[in-house]
Structure formats: C-alpha cells, structure tokens
C-alpha cells in the first residue's frame, strides 16, 4: 500500500467537504433556471414568449451573486417576476453559503499546515548547499542562526511554537533559512528537514526540554548514523545516555557559563583569547580585563549558581552566597551564607565592602539589574559580573555598564558555532586551560605578531 502524504489526506477531506456547498449551488441553480425558462413571458402579438435557457442562466447568475443588472433582455411578465422573487432569495442564500464554506475550507488549519509542510520539504530537497538542521528557535537558537548567517551557512529550522516561526519569517539573514512549525521529535519532520540529505552537515537540538532533546538526538542518530549531532542538555542522566551514542556532542549551557565565569575571574588572558576567537564586540587581543583578587559574592543559587560555586570552589576561589532558598547542607562548610533576597542589607551582611567582586546570577533579569544597582551604590570599586537571561533586555544591560555581562544563551550559541565551524579551537582553549597562563600569553604574542590588529575570522574546515 503506497503511503499517502499529509497533503493527500487533508486534500481529500477538504474536497469531500466541498461537496455540500457545491450541491446546494447546483440544485438551486438548476431549479431556478428551469423555472425561469418555463414561465411564460410577455405576450407579443398574442403569443406567449419564453425565455431561452441560456438567458435564464445569465439572469440567474447575476441575480444569485447580487449583481442585479435588471430585467434583461426584455421586461418580465408577472409570472416571471414571481419566479424571479423565488430565485432571488434561494440564489443569494445558496451563493453566500457556498462561498463561505469554500473559503473556510481553504483556510482549514490542517490544510494550511499540510501545505506548509509540503512546501518546506520541497525547498529543503532542492537545496544543494551544505546546511545545518536547527531544532528549537528560542534565544540560543536564534543567536546561533544569526551566527550561522554571518558565516554564510544555511540552516533549516524546526520549532513547535508558531510564534517563533513567524518571528523567523521577519528576520533578514544573508542566506535562506526555511522554517517549519512542527514537533522536531517526530521522525517524519526530521526527514522533511533533510536529516538524510547528503548536504546536511550537522543537527543541533536546542529546545528547552531535555527529554525532547534526547529524543531528537536518538531519532537523528538512527535515521542518519553519520551525521554529527549536537545536543543541549542540563541533566546528568540525559548526558550519560547521550555519551553512549557516538558522534553526539553534549553542550551543557550551565557548565559552559560556569567555565567562562571561572576563566573571567581567574584566567583573564584565556577569557580574552576565547572572546577574541568568537568575535565578541569590544575585545582586543592581548588586553585582558584586569580582575581583582579576593573573595567573590554570588547572588543566586539555582542550578546555575550551584555549578558556578562548584567550579570556583574547585579552583580555590572563595565564595560567599546570597540566596533566599539555598539549602545549607548542599553548600558545605567554610562558606559565608546569607539567606535573603539580594538587596542592600543582604549585600552588607555578606561583606560587599571587602569583596573583590559580585556575580549576580539569578534567573530573572530584573533581579540581576536590581542587585547591580545596589552593589554600585555600596561599593563602586567592586568588579561586577552580571548574568543576562533574555536577549530582549539587551538595551538595559548595555546601559547598566557592568564590568562583564554573560548571557548564557549567547555563550551556548557561540560554543556550538565554534564546534560547527572549527572544532579544534575549542580543543586548543581546553588544552591551554590545563596549562600555565604563561603558555597562553606566548600564544597571544605570536598571534599579535602574525595578525596585528586584524580581527579573527573563523573559516569552515572540511
């Protein structure tokens, strides 16, 4: 049995629903025209004339559509007028009913979705250039798409939220990026997106739900074993599943954020080199931001804060925590802990006057900016690192003029872009992280000698 596509099925159903309005129209037309042709017209020379069938059809057409030219070709007799009254009422009603039904059918959401799906699959199939499949078009997804567009790599985008696909429609990218509103976990949508296409380079899944990401990675691995898969995951359980599949790279946004934060605090030359590689604005190679030594205050102890704390503690940086909901047992001893919202009094209690800097890592931008204001008021000399959650608040964060703003969706997108374009850069950075800072500085001097003031531009490898 041949498999019917979505469009075939929905198309058949739409045609079937068209029957009733078409029959209504046909019935009313035939009764009206027959009657009109049978009614005796005005007598000419004593002999009754009749309207021909064609003239009756003409009259009925412009009557039913309420155009109403008049009594053509000649005036009507009274019997004809009686019948014309009947035609008017039934014809107009049948016509409006038919038009309304037909328009409603064509706007059937299933029909429109099936048409979109077919058009999308056709665009993907016709494409010959290398492309990336991107599942999930949230903050990280759209930042990654922008990065891919800047590097002239096409992408095919799947997202289950129709608003995000509409937002995709109004973006101006340098390359074409078709998008479809569909559940990326369903294999038929992955196939439509080109997971088996020879020109597909990689599949990146960046949805907010770890279970969905795992499902997409597993489906993609089964459909195309040779395809590189990059999967976003924040839970350790999923990560163990994913490491078991080969050629799947797991990207943990919290881990990346915590790592970057640690490098910003303790290895500024490495952070500077990394930022220069990804082309962050306002970064000059060899001019790392000077960060004071000492204890740090961490505001916010959710999943991200916990990861940051572990990372910093493992490298011997003293941390004081401010969070209203933190569990004392998880934190461990030798840590100053203030269980309150991050406001003036809490910052005072944590000793903001002698801290080297403050990290505001809460998951609401308003809280972070608020805490930032308090810190600036209490200790203007402290080094302020701020976590930005949502891309749409960019303007506020620019105006706040913190010393360092880290946006986790941006860091995730940049890491994935590095992995896609030139994976060796990430290996280089990781290698340098394990070695002494002097080696990083040697490399920076060599790069400066070779490139001067030119910015880095990553080229696609392979």
């Amino acid at each position, binding site marked *: 049995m041949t498999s019917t596509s979505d469009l075939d099925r929905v198309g058949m159903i739409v045609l079937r629903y068209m029957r009733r309005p078409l*029959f209504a129209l046909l019935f009313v037309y035939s009764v009206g025209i027959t009657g009109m042709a049978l009614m005796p017209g005005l007598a000419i020379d004593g002999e009754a004339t009749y309207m021909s*069938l064609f003239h009756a059809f003409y009259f009925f057409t412009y009557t039913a559509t309420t155009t109403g030219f008049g009594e053509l070709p000649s005036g009507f007799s009274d019997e004809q007028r009686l019948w014309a009254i009947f035609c008017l009422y039934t014809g107009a009603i049948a016509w409006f009913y038919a038009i309304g039904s037909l328009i409603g059918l064509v706007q059937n959401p299933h029909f429109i979705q099936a048409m979109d799906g077919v058009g999308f699959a056709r665009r993907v199939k016709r494409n010959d250039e290398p492309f990336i499949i991107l599942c999930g078009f949230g903050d990280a997804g759209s930042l990654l798409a922008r990065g891919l567009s800047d590097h002239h790599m096409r992408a095919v985008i799947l997202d289950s939220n129709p608003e995000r696909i509409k937002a995709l429609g109004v973006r101006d990218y340098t390359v074409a990026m078709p998008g479809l509103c569909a559940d990326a976990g369903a294999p038929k949508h992955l196939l439509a997106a080109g997971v088996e296409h020879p020109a597909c380079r990689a599949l990146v899944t960046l949805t907010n739900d770890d279970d969905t990401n795992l499902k997409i990675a597993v489906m993609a691995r089964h459909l195309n074993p040779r395809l590189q898969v990059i999967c976003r995951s924040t839970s350790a359980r999923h990560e163990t599943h994913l490491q078991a599949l080969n050629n799947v790279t797991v990207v943990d946004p919290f881990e990346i954020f915590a790592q970057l934060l640690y490098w910003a605090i303790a290895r500024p030359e490495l952070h500077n080199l990394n930022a220069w590689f990804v082309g962050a604005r306002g970064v000059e190679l060899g001019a790392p931001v000077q960060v004071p030594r000492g204890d740090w205050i961490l505001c916010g102890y959710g999943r991200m804060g916990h990861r940051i704390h572990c990372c910093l503690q493992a490298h011997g940086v003293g941390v004081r925590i401010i969070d209203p909901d933190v569990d004392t047992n998880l934190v461990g001893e030798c840590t100053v802990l203030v269980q309150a919202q991050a406001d003036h009094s809490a910052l005072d209690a944590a000793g903001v006057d002698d801290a080297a800097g403050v990290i505001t890592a809460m998951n609401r931008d308003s809280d972070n900016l608020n805490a930032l204001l308090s810190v600036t008021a209490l200790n203007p000399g402290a080094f302020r690192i701020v976590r930005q959650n949502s891309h749409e608040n960019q303007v506020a964060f620019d105006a706040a003029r913190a010393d360092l703003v880290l946006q986790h969706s941006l860091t995730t997108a940049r890491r994935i872009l590095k992995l896609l374009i030139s994976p060796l850069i990430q290996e280089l950075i990781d290698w340098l992280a394990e070695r002494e800072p002097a080696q990083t500085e040697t490399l920076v001097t060599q790069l400066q000698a070779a490139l001067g003031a030119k910015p880095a531009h990553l080229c696609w490898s392979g």
Partner: protein
Amino acid sequence: MNFERVVFGFFVILTLSLNYAFVAGSVEATAHHNVWILTFAIIVNLVAIGLKLGDRSQIGALLLASGLVASLLLITARVVWIVAGSGDGSGPAPEEMTDIVSIARGALIANIVATVILVGDTLLSRR
C-alpha cells in the same frame, strides 16, 4: 445494499441515458436534438462529478476523470449552441448542429466508459 451506491449508480446511468437521448437521431436535423435534454444531461453530469469528489480509491479517481471529460465536452457543446449564429431563437443551422452533436457523441463515449467501470467494479467485487 448501499444507499450511497444506489444514488451514484442512478446518476451515472441517468447521465448516460440523457446523453444518448440527446445525440440519438440524424446528426443534422435540428428537430432531433432538444436543448432541454442537453441541459439536464449537463446538470446530472455535474452531480455525478460532485459525488466523486474526495473519493480516495482508484476507481473513484477514474470515475471522476471520466465525469470531468464528459462535462467538459457537454458544456463545450452547449456553448457552441449558444453562439450558433443563425436566427435568434430558431436554433442552430444544420452545419452547426453537426458540430454540436459530434461533440456530444464524444461525451457519450466518456459516459459509457464511466458506466462500464462502475458495472465492472460492482460485478468484480462479489459481495
């Protein structure tokens, strides 16, 4: 005994009968061909097409196709009749009548094909 099949069979056979009733007789004689019969043949043909919209089987597709052919030809014949120039109201001239009836005979073939498919399908299904 399926009501839907009765209705569809009725309309298919009726359109074949009306089509034959229209084309029967000498090709040129105007008196042998009645415009009312042609009109009713067109209407019944459109009904038969409507009944086959959205039918997913292969037989349904063939019946829809033959119905579309027949209606195309019958409507063409009717249009030729309308624009046939000789005399207002006294019907077409013999030459034009020939054209009209020839086209309608073509439509008859399509209707015969549809009826044969319908009967054949019913006989072969053995239920």
